[in-house]
């Protein structure tokens, strides 16, 4: 299907006045946890195309090809505290020979069309139709109003996958605009609908968001020993305010979520950042997510599955995120990224160096040190490191 789509699109990009750009990314990671060391790495090519058949029209697409260095298979159970999975996989009523010790997840090579869209610029609004990246919210590490994406704490600024949608962005006046998104599902009820009004109040930007969609969450059926999908109608009333006080940036982003079958919940992020004269930059964020679990004793395998699948923004309720960066010179930057789970007292500290080796070539080296007991979210891992080389073209 992807190959067919690519072949259909190819003449447009070859015979239109097209721009080709993208990047190569090579990454090598090593992680130590559960008394084992895991190596994994990949080579990725992202190829973007863009054509403008008319001044007001943009047709864009990008293909991602990701090839892992080896056939990588992970044991999901290594990532979970034993008291979460043992009652299901090793019930004491079963004899030990019947206990399950592995739940393999394979990382396989991928070749996929991430985004493919047409954007038309009308006099009064812009309309984008197709698979497109939609990133909502002002938070850096978390976005309570973003119903389409969930960020990785180790890399919150990594691009996110496309969403099939029709999006209309209508500037009203000055800093006031309206953003309407419809992401079609099986029927109207299962389609995601979102409306966002943005405006400026002095030095502050203010957003109000209303969204409604069917929230699909993965649940593990211990009888069938298979995961299945649980559906719930979710209505989101959100908002954000971003501005500054005494030179320091501040933002609050929050959402109240009404669910048809489960308890309603609130999610809020509060953040601040500041750049010092010498170039030192510091950013801090706090997340309160009532959808998370308040105590590690109450965590079950479904909470982990939903978090790993990006269906929830956090596993537990209270988190702190911090990042500082300092330019050693014009091409080398030192960074320290840290995040902590305030409910189970586990954390990760990640010093990193980013080096612009050549024009369009960046090298990032990062070490991760995990803190906390073995039965905590981050403490289940010991340490890790990552080297990432990215060359843009």
């Amino acid at each position: 299907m992807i190959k067919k789509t690519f072949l259909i699109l190819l003449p447009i990009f070859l015979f239109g006045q097209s721009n080709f750009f993208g990047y190569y990314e090579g990454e090598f990671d090593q992680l130590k946890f559960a008394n084992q060391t895991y190596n994994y790495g990949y080579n990725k090519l992202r190829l973007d195309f863009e054509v403008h058949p008319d001044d007001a029209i943009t047709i864009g697409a990008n293909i991602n090809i990701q090839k892992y260095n080896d056939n990588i298979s992970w044991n999901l159970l290594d990532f979970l505290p034993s008291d979460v999975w043992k009652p299901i996989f090793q019930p004491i009523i079963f004899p030990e020979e019947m206990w399950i010790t592995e739940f393999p997840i394979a990382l396989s090579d991928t070749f996929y069309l991430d985004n493919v869209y047409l954007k038309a610029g009308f006099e009064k609004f812009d309309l984008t139709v197709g698979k497109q990246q939609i990133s909502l919210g002002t938070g850096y590490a978390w976005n309570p109003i973003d119903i389409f994406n969930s960020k990785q704490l180790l890399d919150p600024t990594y691009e996110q996958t496309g969403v099939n949608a029709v999006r209309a962005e209508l500037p009203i006046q000055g800093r006031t605009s309206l953003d309407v998104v419809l992401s079609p599902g099986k029927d109207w009820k299962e389609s995601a609908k979102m409306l966002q009004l943005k405006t400026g109040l002095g030095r502050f930007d203010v957003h109000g968001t209303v969204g409604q969609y069917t929230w699909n969450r993965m649940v593990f059926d211990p009888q069938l020993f298979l995961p299945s999908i649980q559906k719930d109608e979710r209505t989101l009333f959100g908002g954000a305010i971003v501005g500054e006080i005494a030179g320091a940036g501040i933002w609050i982003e929050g959402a109240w979520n009404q669910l048809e079958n489960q308890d309603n919940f609130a999610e809020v992020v509060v953040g601040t950042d500041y750049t010092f004269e010498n170039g030192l930059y510091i950013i801090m964020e706090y997340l309160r997510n009532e959808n998370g679990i308040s105590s590690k004793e109450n965590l079950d395998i479904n909470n982990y599955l939903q978090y790993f699948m990006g269906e929830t923004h956090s596993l537990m309720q209270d988190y702190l995120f911090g990042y500082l960066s300092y330019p050693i010179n014009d091409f080398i930057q030192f960074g320290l990224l840290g995040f902590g789970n305030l409910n189970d007292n586990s954390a990760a500290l990640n010093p990193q160096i980013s080096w612009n080796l050549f024009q369009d070539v960046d090298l990032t080296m990062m070490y991760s040190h995990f803190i906390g007991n073995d039965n905590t979210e981050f403490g289940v891992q010991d340490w890790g490191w990552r080297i990432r080389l990215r060359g843009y073209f």
Partner: protein
Amino acid sequence: MKKVIMVSILGLSMTIAQNVIPTGAELVEKMSEVMSQENSTAIMTQTITTSSGKQRTFEFEMFTSGEGEKTLMRYLKPSAARGQAFLMLNNADDIWTYFPRTKRVRKLSSSSKNQKVQGSDFSFEDMGSGDSWKTEYDSENLGEEKYDGTDCWKLESIGILEENPSYPKMVVFMRKADFYPIKIDYFDENDFIEKTLLMSDIKEIEGVPTAMGMIMKNHLEGTETTMQTLSTTYSWEPPENFFTERELKK
């Protein structure tokens, strides 16, 4: 006879006018008139040279309006920066940046306005502040001085603390002929010259003197950034709602 007297009086008053020494505020006003056109658009290259001689080159388009009060910058090259854009309003007091890879717009706090743009020796405020010279500095004319063989007025501008200026002090050499600045020294809190901006290849574009070349030398870090104007015009009229998030994301 009357004509001779009239011509003599006129000649005398012109001589007096020529010899009147403008005040610092008048020089700033004249300089602003020359430098700050109502609207402009340009395509420029920016080459950063580090103390070890390594270079990075960027190309960007820049749109300004309201005598520099509004600025929109968008990087065209290299590939790593392609599409990244900055919108600066209120003389760079409000800055938004757009990251094309994540399609996100972030508002930057004003503490970042004196930070380097893309690692260059130009800060956001250097790029986006229009007439902040008039409001954030007290200026004094230090008299005439030659710079690089050109007759100049030497202007000293001291930052007004309450206005939160980017530099505590600046010294400008501007051509007496047209009040166009050809050298600006930026001082730090210890009264050392932190950076020097040199204008070169000054051409008349649509009747406006325009420096086609600029070099910002950072004396503290031993780096320099060269800017070259590839094309520019002052006759561009910004469409309605041009300096907004919609244009930033294009």
